[in-house]
């Protein structure tokens, strides 16, 4: 029988990714019986989603990215770098 500590560790270290069917089943079963571990797994998932949304929201607009790109290339190749 998996303990809550086992299940949370499996969830937080992405161990299910390469796990066999039996372990996956045991974790699923544990979630059915244990609302706390289910909530833990939900929280971990939501933290990931929120972090991604936040990073996407903070990303500057395209125009700004193109300016940054130009400045990187100008630094690397100098003014004559635009020889296309």
């Amino acid at each position, binding site marked *: 029988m998996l303990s809550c500590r086992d299940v949370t560790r499996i969830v937080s270290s992405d161990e299910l990714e390469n796990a066999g069917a039996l372990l996956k089943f045991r974790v699923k079963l544990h979630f059915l019986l244990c609302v706390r571990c289910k909530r833990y797994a939900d929280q971990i998932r939501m933290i990931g989603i929120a972090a991604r949304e936040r990073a996407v929201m903070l*990303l500057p607009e395209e125009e700004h990215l193109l300016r940054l790109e130009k400045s990187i290339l100008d630094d690397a190749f100098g003014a004559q770098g635009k020889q296309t």
Partner: protein
Amino acid sequence: MSGNTEAPREDVGSANQAELAARIRESDPDAIRDVVHAYLPQIMRAALGAGLDRPVAEDVTQSTFATFIESAHRFEGRSHVRTWLFGILYKKIAETRRRLKRDRETDDIDEVFEQRFDKNGIWTKGPRPVDAVVFDKEIRQSIDDCLEEVPSKQKMAFVLREIEQLDSEQICNILEVTRTNLGVLLHRVRNRLRECLEQKGIEGTASA
């Protein structure tokens, strides 16, 4: 000539890695330009995702590509160009944090985690139910404060997994760790973030 700035982003190197690697090694300006264009948003997003302020994130992005261009002749093409770039970014972020003296010497998250369970491994105080909408909104406001406390390697593991959604093998290559180490890094950073958010009163429901 393929130095086409109209090319869709993230389109570089998916088809012909070997040819692209050779062109990068020769510092072919068109290939370099394609790579910068394709991966700039990803690198910038990852830098922001690591909790850097926008000006710092821009500096780190710029210096990541500068290092990439300087060391292009050493690119062997054994790993994907994206892996190479994220590897440089990781080192830049760690450097920046050391300079700003933000990396903590010790990490007590393992202890904190253990305290959550009794001797039979059962929750002593369980997580609260998740109200997805509230949780999501509140985390977005607090997550950078919480990320601040996280050591660079853990943070980068989290960013590459959750924000860039890379697979384990790629992340292990970038951070130069084993799959088991990666599991430990993810375990620590996620629990660190969860504990930090909980301390801020974000436990899933609107009322504390």
